[in-house]
């Protein structure tokens, strides 16, 4: 059981959640594709640290397992797959976007405020330890969406998706002290398979279109 006083624990969890959010902004501000992948890996490490803290402070052991899986899948395996794709496809290493970086950062700031606004009526229900994390988690999910819609390249859209997953995981761990183990395992499995499928798709898209620029795919419409 915890040896730390509850309010220090709470500060630490909040600090880690805030670091997660900060890496989101870093991803939005980053131009180089490889660096985006690294930042995602870093974010996953912060996520694992948050999960470990929550596990330690609450004494719920299966969250440790989730933290280990986060490191293995999201900080090591998926970034490797993504980097391999980036190298193989020889895609331009620069990220191309629909909106420029300052506008993107401002939008993300707005999304954070929106997330706090949405969750404001329900945070009081949560556990004392992790009350503010729900809002931060929703903010990360929303920024993930923003990354998905504002980028042109298939690979960065995938990073957006993985950021959303990280936000969801933070919500589950911090707000609800982790989903039941079997559900958690299933989610990890699905994320891993999703990563592989996206890898297959980017490869095929590159072969068929000669590029992974998704803005070239516009044959199908009304």
């Amino acid at each position, binding site marked *: 059981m915890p040896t730390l006083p509850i309010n220090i624990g709470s500060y630490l969890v909040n600090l880690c959640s805030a670091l997660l959010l900060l890496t989101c902004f870093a991803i939005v501000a980053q131009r180089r594709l490889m660096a985006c992948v690294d930042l995602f890996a870093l974010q996953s490490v912060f996520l694992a640290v948050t999960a470990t803290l929550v596990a330690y402070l609450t004494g719920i052991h299966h969250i440790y397992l989730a933290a280990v899986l986060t490191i293995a899948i999201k900080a090591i395996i998926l970034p490797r797959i993504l980097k391999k794709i980036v190298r193989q496809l020889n895609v331009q290493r620069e990220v191309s976007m629909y909106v420029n970086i300052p506008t993107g950062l401002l939008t993300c700031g707005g999304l954070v405020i929106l997330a706090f606004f949405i969750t404001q009526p329900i945070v009081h229900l949560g556990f004392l330890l992790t009350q503010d994390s729900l809002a931060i988690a929703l903010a990360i999910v929303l920024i993930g969406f923003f990354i998905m819609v504002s980028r042109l390249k298939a690979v960065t859209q995938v990073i957006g998706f993985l950021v959303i997953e990280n936000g969801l995981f933070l919500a589950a761990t911090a707000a609800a002290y982790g989903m039941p183990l079997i559900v958690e395992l299933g989610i990890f499995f699905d994320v891993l398979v999703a990563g592989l*499928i996206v890898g297959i*798709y980017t490869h095929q898209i590159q072969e068929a279109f000669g590029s992974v620029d998704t803005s070239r795919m516009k044959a*199908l419409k009304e």
Partner: protein
Amino acid sequence: MIWPIILLIATPFLIGVSGLVVRDRQTLDVLHCVQAGIMMVSSMLLVDEVSMSGPVSFFYFLHADAMSAWFDLVIGIVAGTGTLYAVGYVGEQYDRGHVSIKRFRQFFMLFDLYLGVMLLAVNVENLGIMWIAIEGATLSAALLIGFERSKGALEAGWKFVILSSVGIALALFGTILVYYSSEQLLGITEEALHWSKLYEVGDQLDSSVMKIAFIFILVGYGTKAGLVPMHTWLPDAHGEAPTPVSAMLSANMLTMAVYAILRLKILTDQSVGTEFTGTLLMGFGFFSVALSSIVLLLQEDFKRLLAFSSIEHIGIALIGFGLGGLGVFGGIWHLLNHALAKSAAFYGAGLVLITHEHKFIARVTGLLREHPAGGVALFVAGLVLAGMPPFGLFVSEITIAANAMATAPTIAYGFFGVLTVAFATLLFQILRMVLGMPMETPSSTVGPRCRAFSTAAIAVNLGALIFLGLHVPDGLHNLIGAILPFFHAEGEYF
């Protein structure tokens, strides 16, 4: 009796895995005929069982109550005929040398997996595992849509992967919120996600959390159900996927997504009241019907035409569920008949696509003369989808419309308006294809094996549609009686 539910769910997984070792086509064909038979028979047995003696459960994992049994029937029957059709359709591609035996085996492994996870999703007890199963359906569907690897298929597949992943992520956030609220009452255990436990404590769940959770889940699973404005993946995926997959997407996956939304609606209603969820469902439903009714008229591609018709019909069913009361009966009856009719229409369309090798509505005429099986399938399914009596969709639409008139007249007028446009346009497009003299000679004919399998699939679907139009079996009657209380609905149906 536990085995119908076990057989129903285990068969596609087992036969799918057998594709890893079975290497010849003949054996695969036989295995899949067996699978089709088992799925159809066991789904009917399950309905019988549940309607006679109440819910069936298997440990704490599977739990089939009346709701699950209804969706098992829809998905089980259509998955059965879909398997038969796929054996014919993909077999034809193989005979023509378009797919290798390796790709043939891959297709059936994915296809069986896809059917299996959908059946799992509507029977599991745990809300979180339902999410995992639906995500499994998304991922297997993603590979099936892009199966032909043409530019169009890849574009459609990519769009599907991205949009569905976003949708499913939102649904997971909603699920986490439900757990966040329920674990305050039930404790940090797996049971806090079990439907039966949740329904016991539903009225004590915090109403503001449930409202936010329902919105996330409606938008999330609504993306998979093809609700406007999250529908943009749907026509592309239905248009570009191999035709058996299009039929399964439309008849099974959309239905499964509606099931997930309904489960959460029942739970949310307990703490929030029916008005909140009802209004949201009617809103999304109405916009889906309105948009698709216009697009149907402009459509030039017959597979996309059927896709937009699916958006429309899911919208109609949601309006029924949103209205409550007998509208709920209209909704579930609508889903069953729509699944049968839409898959039959896709089976017919697939035959046209194989022989003509294009998808232009304008260049296809006189199908009744040219293609007995495909023409009849499109013609009868077209009449059903346009809501002609005596078929089931006529009954459900009249019920929903009458119910709307009684409870919310303003909605009813709008509903009548868009419905009329939708049916006129659909019927116009379908009749244009099936009547008259053939204008274009088909570039090829289908082989006898493909013709036999697809005719069998079409015959089962059309037979079921006609049967349900003329007679309602006791089992289904009792099952509807057991579903209505979930929605606090009552009234005389049939």
